[in-house]
């Protein structure tokens, strides 16, 4: 499949986040954070700017602590590859309110566009499926997004959806990166103003 036929990442993430309502969102470092920032900053967003490999585990802890809310992790293929074991840990815990989107451009966009393992055929949705995720999908066309969006917000999780996107680079859209601020802002938004 040619790269022209792959999804544009910003439009795909905008489509997904348009239906977030009160979903809690955790983003992996790099372009995944910029894609979410391009949709608009939100106090229910927690952006990782480092600790590579941690997006899914942060999402897991949050999903376990907030079982009545949907938690959506949005990360990239490079970050997901660094924390593959976390997919096994999530599958064992089976939080039914956790969904993961992997924006897979098959490249390390932050470090010079070197190819990732997914460009050689490593199948992240297949790995999640074999770990025991009840819902997994790999999406290559815009027309397939509607079903994926429904699954991300409404299916019994854990859900993992891989978006095969174009490696084209979009303009940088930065978020705050003061970790203490992001943490306290998120906690106050979710738990109430009395928490620090």
């Amino acid at each position, binding site marked *: 499949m040619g790269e022209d036929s792959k999804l544009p990442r910003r439009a795909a993430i905008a489509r997904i986040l348009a239906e977030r309502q009160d979903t*809690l969102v*955790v983003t992996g470092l790099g372009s995944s954070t910029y894609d979410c920032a391009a949709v608009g900053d939100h106090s229910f967003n927690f952006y990782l700017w480092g600790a590579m490999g*941690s997006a899914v585990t942060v999402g897991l802890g949050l*999903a*376990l*602590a907030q079982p009545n809310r949907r938690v959506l992790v949005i990360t990239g293929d490079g970050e997901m590859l660094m924390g593959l*074991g*976390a997919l096994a840990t999530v599958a064992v815990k089976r939080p039914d309110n956790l969904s993961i989107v992997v924006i897979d451009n098959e490249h390390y966009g932050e470090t010079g566009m070197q190819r990732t393992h997914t460009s050689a055929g490593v199948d992240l949705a297949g790995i999640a499926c074999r770990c025991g995720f009840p819902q997994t999908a790999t999406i290559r066309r815009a027309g397939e997004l509607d079903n994926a969006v429904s699954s991300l917000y409404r299916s019994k999780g854990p859900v993992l959806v891989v978006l095969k996107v174009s490696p084209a680079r979009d303009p940088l859209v930065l978020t705050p990166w003061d970790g203490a601020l992001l*943490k306290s802002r998120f906690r106050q938004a979710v738990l109430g103003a009395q928490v620090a």
Partner: protein
Amino acid sequence: MRRAAREDRGVEIGGNRHVPTGHAHNWPKLIFEKLREFQVRHVTYVPDTGHAQLIELCQAADGMEPTVLTTEEEGIGILAGAWLGGERGVLLMQSSGVGNCINTLSLSKVCGFPLLIIVTMRGEWGELNPWQIPMGQIAAKSLQLAGVIVYEVTEPEAAAPTVEAAARICFNGGLAVAVLLSQRMLGTKLFKD
């Protein structure tokens, strides 16, 4: 930080552990009670003989959420997420896992997440397996370099009071604190059937 060795006459337990005589065998139960007192709910762990009894107590406890990890740094992320959702946790590991955690500890440091870690030591005192010694010898210093406050425990009677002190500054101060349980109190794996 280090204390002089006590006289260690020693006994074997189960044929495969060598532990000092006359110590309080109920330290895991006392640590467990401290975790309950501090409303620790999420118990993330990598399986370990030294933590086995504490893990079993947490697994059997109402309202505790034990999560077994594939590698130690997963626990740092899970506990950060749990704190974002308003809940507390602890990370149980062996000293060999400290090195796995170093970059991920930046999450706790930069964001001010509380992180309570209880580490059972290997490669630190009378270790038989030479492969455990390199990490065991640098575990405390590595944690300190990464910004973690380190309390070392060599006497079983001091374990629960040290966990209490660690939990207090951890959860009130938004700090990473590790309690290191020495092989002097845990005993040494003897590699016998």
